[in-house]
């Protein structure tokens, strides 16, 4: 009969967990520090396998990439998670939207915190994308063979701004509708397609049927606009952005990994 002390041997317990069939079925590799295991840690893990197994020494320096692409992606993930939580409480209807935000702030558990996280992460993401673009430019990383990934990047930048802009309307307060009014007024001036733009008479667009009213679902920023922006903000734009991010990451690998002096 083993003594109590022997039975509570921590090493023994750890080994029996790590050696169990259940654990082994989930995690194939331990932390054994061999070159082979280091490679397996990356390629056998869905989340890590986007990485190559080995990477050029300069590419892991913060000073080279500023880590800004990764930070942008991290912020995007936080926005998805907090955004889904907000969706549980928010209804994109003129009568409810503002009240739902108030409810979220005062009554929903961690509601204010979730809203703050979502808002600030959105601002931070815009800044992070700008910085990422700045560093990609400064290292000349758009040069062949990475031209196309830069183009994808510009699309991602545009989508990031659009995400932020469509989300701006959703609290349905004064700040929201007037900022979006200022922003969408420009659409009225689109050449050919806007009712006040050059050559509008020739095309025959009217304030009720032009580029701006298609965006707003009416002639002013009203409840139909709220619904449109909600659908764009929660479904259309994030979906396109997520797809383009996959292409972006895949291209980084296919273009030979992070750029560096050849």
């Amino acid at each position: 009969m083993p003594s109590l002390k022997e039975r509570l041997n921590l090493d023994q317990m750890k080994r029996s967990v790590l050696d169990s069939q259940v654990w082994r079925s989930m995690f194939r590799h331990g932390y054994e520090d061999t070159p082979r295991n280091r490679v397996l840690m990356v390629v056998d893990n869905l989340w890590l396998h986007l990485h190559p197994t080995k990477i050029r020494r300069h590419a892991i320096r913060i000073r080279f990439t500023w880590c800004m692409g990764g930070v942008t992606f991290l912020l995007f993930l936080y926005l998805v998670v907090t955004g889904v939580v907000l969706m549980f409480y928010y209804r994109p209807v003129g009568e409810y939207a503002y009240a739902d935000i108030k409810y979220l702030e005062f009554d929903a558990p961690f509601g204010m915190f979730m809203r703050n996280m979502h808002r600030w992460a959105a601002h931070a993401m815009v800044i992070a994308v700008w910085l990422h673009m700045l560093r990609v430019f400064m290292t000349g990383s758009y040069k062949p063979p990475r031209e196309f990934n830069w183009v994808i990047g510009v699309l991602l930048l545009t989508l990031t701004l659009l995400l932020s802009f469509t989300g701006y309307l959703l609290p349905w307060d004064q700040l929201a509708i007037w900022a979006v009014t200022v922003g969408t007024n420009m659409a009225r001036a689109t050449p050919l397609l806007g009712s006040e733009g050059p050559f509008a008479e020739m095309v025959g667009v009217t304030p009720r049927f032009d580029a701006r009213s298609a965006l707003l679902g009416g002639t002013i920023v009203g409840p139909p606009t709220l619904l449109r922006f909600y659908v764009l903000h929660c479904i259309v734009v994030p979906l396109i952005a997520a797809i383009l991010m996959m292409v972006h990451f895949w291209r980084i690998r296919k273009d030979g990994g992070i750029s560096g002096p050849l």
Partner: protein
Amino acid sequence: MAKEDKVVGSADEMAKTSWERVNDKVHVWPYLTRLEFMCAIIITILLVVWSIVIDAPLEEPANPSVTPNPSKAPWYFLGLQELLVYFDPWMAGVVLPTLIIVGLMAIPFIDVNPKGNGYYTFHERRFAIFTFLFGFLVLWVWMVVQGTFLRGPGWNFFMPWEYWDPHKVVALTNVDLPYMLGFRSYWGQAACGAVLILLWYATIPAYYIWRRERMKNVGLVRYLIKASLNMTMMGIVAKMVLRIGLNVKYVLVTPWFNI
């Protein structure tokens, strides 16, 4: 300096052979993954603390009949709102933003300089870096800062120590450039404006002919796109200078549109 600390593109790094440079590799696990992990933790802590300390703004419920003054677009679009001072909405809100996006996408295809690919350098690509930083820092970042902090009611300009007086009166004495130059008839003004704009863009072929030896590796089509984008960006600056310095309203006036 330790081996890890060498600056990319530094002299001793460049002294290596290409083969040595490209094959100087480390394992992603743990060298990259641990950095990503650290980065994620730091960003998370910052974001959580920020969200605990500062609440997101929420103003009065939306009311279409009460227009706040100033009404501002979200901060990242304030550069475009600023352009409205100098251009009509179809330019500031539609044409120029489109050109910005297209122009950014075109960068890899119009910059044919093979140097500076994958490392920091200024002297090997002075023009490219100067142009980009000018657009990024002056026309974008600075415009956002100015739009946020220095533009008050009526989109009037206020110094940081000035009170945002909603009744500030600013004399609107703007005149069109052709009028200033002495053209009085309607079509005379239109023709003068068109000539001025053509002259501005005529610098493009002129420069090409002057520097044709150098342009050989750029190619005509690429040069034309590159130079038009560049002259358009500089044109924005020119219009700003004319407007702020000489109170010029339009350069070109036509029955259909004004620039």
